[in-house]
């Protein structure tokens, strides 16, 4: 395990997580997250050969229901909390620039 994160790595992870962070945050998070990563290193002491992973505490497998049409939200209800709802759509800034479109 790499048990520390420098500021460049913090910026990379922030980008992956779609989080804008300030320079001050990058410095602070690098030291705080490195401390946490150093702490979790102790998991390496545990022999986990032949141990299956547990993603879920319950032995529940796929849960199915009848495939029937049910009442659902109207468009207005779905758009109720939209920061920019427009004509029945969620409006966002242009995704493609002109050259690539």
């Amino acid at each position, binding site marked *: *395990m*790499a048990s520390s*994160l420098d500021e460049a790595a*913090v910026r990379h*992870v*922030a*980008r*992956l*997580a*779609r*989080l*804008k*962070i300030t320079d001050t*945050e990058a410095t*602070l*998070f690098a030291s*705080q*997250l490195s*401390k*946490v*990563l150093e*702490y*979790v*290193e*102790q*998991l*390496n002491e*545990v022999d*986990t050969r032949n*141990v*299956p*992973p*547990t*993603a*879920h*505490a*319950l032995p*529940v497998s796929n*849960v199915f*229901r009848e495939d029937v049409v049910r009442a659902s*939200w109207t468009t207005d*209800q779905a758009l*109720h*909390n*939209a*920061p*920019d709802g427009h004509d029945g759509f*969620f409006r*966002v*800034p*242009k*995704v493609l620039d002109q050259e690539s479109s």
Partner: protein
Amino acid sequence: MLGPLAGVPMAVKDNMCTTFGATTCGSRILESFRSRYDAHVIERLESAGAVVIGKTNLDEFAMGSSTENSAYFTTLNPWDTTRVAGGSSGGSCAAVAAKIVPAALGSDTGGSIRQPAAFCGVVGLKPSYGRVSRFGLVAFGSSLDQIGPIATDVRDVALVLSVIAGHDERDSTSVDRPVPDYLARLDRLVKGIRIGISEEYFGEGLDREVREAVQAAIDLMAGEGAEVVPIHLPHMKYGIACYYLVATAEASSNLARFDGVRYGYRTPRPSDILDLYESSRGEGFGPEVKRRIMLGTYALSSGYYDAYYLKALKVRTLIKNDFETAFERVDVIASPVTPTTAFGVGEKSSDPLAMYLSDIYTISANLAGICAISVPCGFDSQGLPIGLQLMGPAFGEEHLLAIAHQYQLRTDWHACVPPLGSAVSRR
């Protein structure tokens, strides 16, 4: 016919969706969000006749152990307003302790009901994973989150649990098994029960006064005929390391939905779509939420997945197996809830790891999916409440509640009332 909670005023943690008022999760990103539906537990409370009078403060998205991470307020401890109420269900526990409401709901991902219950001197139950539907609970760590009741005594906790427990097809992890009559079985006697004691819960870092109060509670039950059985939970000490990889990985995925498009805060002048996502999230989330999203993203990222996330899931198996082995020999496991009583406001807020370590005794129950309760068992020399934790096997609530109730019949710690008149929250 009147429901079992007819007219009872209740408060719910503000990470459960309600069609009345706001549902903020203690975050700026949901400041103006108004839910179009009620969480399953809200429907259940209201159909039982309860009057939900308000939403309670929490650490942002339930990430924290002090309620200092709320974007709006810090909730203070009704016993001493220089201390934290604990977290993340600090608002619900403080409201019950200060007698604002007789009962409240919290959510517990790593101790977020039990730790503030211990700090505030009230009873808090984390039900077994799957016992209560999570429909309408804003997700943090989906394989760990569970809603549970908080009240002054075990009887009221049992009553509220009987109302909110049960299958709901809108949560595919909600388990379809009968809900026992928890109230009817509270009178089961302590005599003959086997209480497991694991040295891992009484080691370095445990405050002397907390240890003595918990030991006195165990001695009392032994005096009533309970058999005290030494057990061993060798992987419990890895709980925090395991949890902060599993929970953050799940959080990084769950919180991806806050993108400034469908609901929640949107940055005012995004330059393009990527900036819309990054700035909305960067401006809307507080520092602890950012740290956890980043830690989880890192643990799941290419090249680190096996070393962090998968490794943690394997250790989780060992922690779960330890409990299963222990519960072959004992009915409940007794331990402290927290290593210390309520710490000071600001004392741990600049050191995330120190804050995480305060959850050492509660986290494993979430990883294993078992049920656990925090019950008041004394006060330290500064007059701060101490909590006794009793843990039971998955879906063992009936027995767990009965044992906790029998303890309360023989003690009056839960009947103590904090000095009132002091402000419960401040900006």
